[in-house]
């Protein structure tokens, strides 16, 4: 009989049983791991490896050393893509955080009808990425879109949004914020609801005004989640690809070109797979570095904050006891 039960208590398992467990465990792990190995590990390694080669679209490979990376540093279009992506991140991430936090604070009340209001705020989450992109394409339409119609009634000029070098990126940022802020506000709302009501109450008793309460009770309590949101949205912002791909394919005169899109273009239109892998790997590296840096920063922050919370709690606790 290949299957033998454990024996509870202090009996050591026999080698055969341990072997059987290991084999079964490996079999359980196998399909998932195989897929991840094949579809994540190998492509990741290829992105690294192929970036040091010249690889034609028909997969004829030649060693290239650092050629592709040197080319990357001198390629105006690729550099513009990097610059665009950095600008996108610099604008998107702070706005995303602030808007998501604001929304979650707004929604953190309970009154009749709040459930319905919340479900409207979560519409962007129910709508898929491409559908949102499609809707916004029409919202931003030059001649027939409601945004320009509203601008017109207010007396402004119609803006050619997605067709203009200057405005295309802003339109895309608006679209991305619409979707992303709602999503992260969901997370922050749940975190806010977790904030201990006792702590809040104690702070009120202590005479802290709403702003002070926010800064010293709420914010420290949700700091961890806030930092998670920060990191996740930064990673997402660096990777941005879909809106540009669906709407502008790099935009009027490379205005909306991003790193991921550049990797795609170089590979499938240009047929330079080695160079495309160098760009892909650069993206990977940038994300890893930024994530690691943010982790470090938030760990420091969290340390300080935890101390602050602990001190505050102790102080309030003493106050409570006294009362």
């Amino acid at each position: 009989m290949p299957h033998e039960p454990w024996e509870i208590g202090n009996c050591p398992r026999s080698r055969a049983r341990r072997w059987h467990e290991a084999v079964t465990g490996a079999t359980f792990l196998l399909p998932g791991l195989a897929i991840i190995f094949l579809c994540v590990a190998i492509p990741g390694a290829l992105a690294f490896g192929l970036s040091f080669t010249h690889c034609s679209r028909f997969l004829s490979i030649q060693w290239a050393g650092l050629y592709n990376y040197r080319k990357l540093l001198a390629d105006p279009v690729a550099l513009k893509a990097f610059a665009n992506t950095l600008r996108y991140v610099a604008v998107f991430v702070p706005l995303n955080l602030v808007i998501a936090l604001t929304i979650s604070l707004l929604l953190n009340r309970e009154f009749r009808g709040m459930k319905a209001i919340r479900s409207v705020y979560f519409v962007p989450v129910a709508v898929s990425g491409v559908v949102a992109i499609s809707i916004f394409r029409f919202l931003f339409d030059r001649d027939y879109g409601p945004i320009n119609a509203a601008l017109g009634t207010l007396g402004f000029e119609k803006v050619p949004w997605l067709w203009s070098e200057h405005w295309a990126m802003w339109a895309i940022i608006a679209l991305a914020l619409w979707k992303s802020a709602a999503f992260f506000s969901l997370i922050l709302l749940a975190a806010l609801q977790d904030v201990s009501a006792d702590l809040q109450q104690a702070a009120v008793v202590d005479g802290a005004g709403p702003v002070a309460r926010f800064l010293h009770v709420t914010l420290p309590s949700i700091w961890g989640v806030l930092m998670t949101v920060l990191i996740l949205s930064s990673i997402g912002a660096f990777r941005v690809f879909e809106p540009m791909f669906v709407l502008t394919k790099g935009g009027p005169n490379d205005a909306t070109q991003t790193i991921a899109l550049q990797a795609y273009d170089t590979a499938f239109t240009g047929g330079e797979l080695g160079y495309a892998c160098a760009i892909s790997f650069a993206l990977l590296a940038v994300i890893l570095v930024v994530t690691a840096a943010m982790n470090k920063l938030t760990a420091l922050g969290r340390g300080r904050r935890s101390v602050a919370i602990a001190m505050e709690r102790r102080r309030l606790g003493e106050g409570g006891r006294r009362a």
Partner: protein
Amino acid sequence: MRRRRRTPRQQAATFVYGVLLAAGVVVFGFPLYWMVRGALINQAMWMRVPLVWLPPLKSLSLEAFAAIFASEQFRMSRVLLNTALVAVFMMGFNVIFDCMAGFALSKMRLPGKGLVLAALLTTIMVPFEGMMVPLYLTVTRLGLADTMLGIILPGAASAFCIVLMWRFFNTVPDEIIEAAAVDGASWGQILFSVAMPAAAPAIATIAVFTFLAGWEAFVWPLLITDPQSKFDVLQKVLANATYASMGGTTQTEWAYLMATGLISTLPVLALFLLFQRFFIAGLTGGAVKG
């Protein structure tokens, strides 16, 4: 505490709060309205200037929905079937494979478990856009270009979900497993009859998460399928049509795009209403509660 009369300052604060809340409702709800409106009107009404914010009831029609099923460009019946298959398969494979893996990592003695976990956590960090080109090369080399298996394979297991299941199984007490073992169950039986039912909330989370991922999949199916492929999925069709409409000289009625979008959104909305709790947990990937 007796309710005090509100000070002007408090009244102002409430007013501001109300305004912000209402503004948010408009900002987040309006695009949905625009999609529904767009799906129900014809191209002439789309292009009416000045803009008709609220089209009269008698100008509404469902012909866009009928047209996308008949149209060669949209082929909605085939495309819907494909998308449903992709979503179901992705959900099915993930539930099975990720549970197996998570259970093995959590409850079974394996050499090198720590290494495997570390490797999995690392792969979560790798962004899809960073490896989509080599992934395309790999899958094409395997002969899976433009096949259903090719679309599903990269999404059939998710390191993120495996880690999720691992963390959840860690909270399941070992005694339950041991009890089943004492009763003479094999590891397989333990997994399917004891562990998975115990992990039902986490499994529901994964199921929703991966079903949505399959339903809304766009970039990968686009890369791996031919143009006008018989394996087209919803988002790809919609994306192509949207880009085509950017040029301004397309023959496709814009209502068709909005109708496609609406059809794509309806199952998600249904899931949301039915399984709200798991939906939220699924979306946030359990990031909300630990």
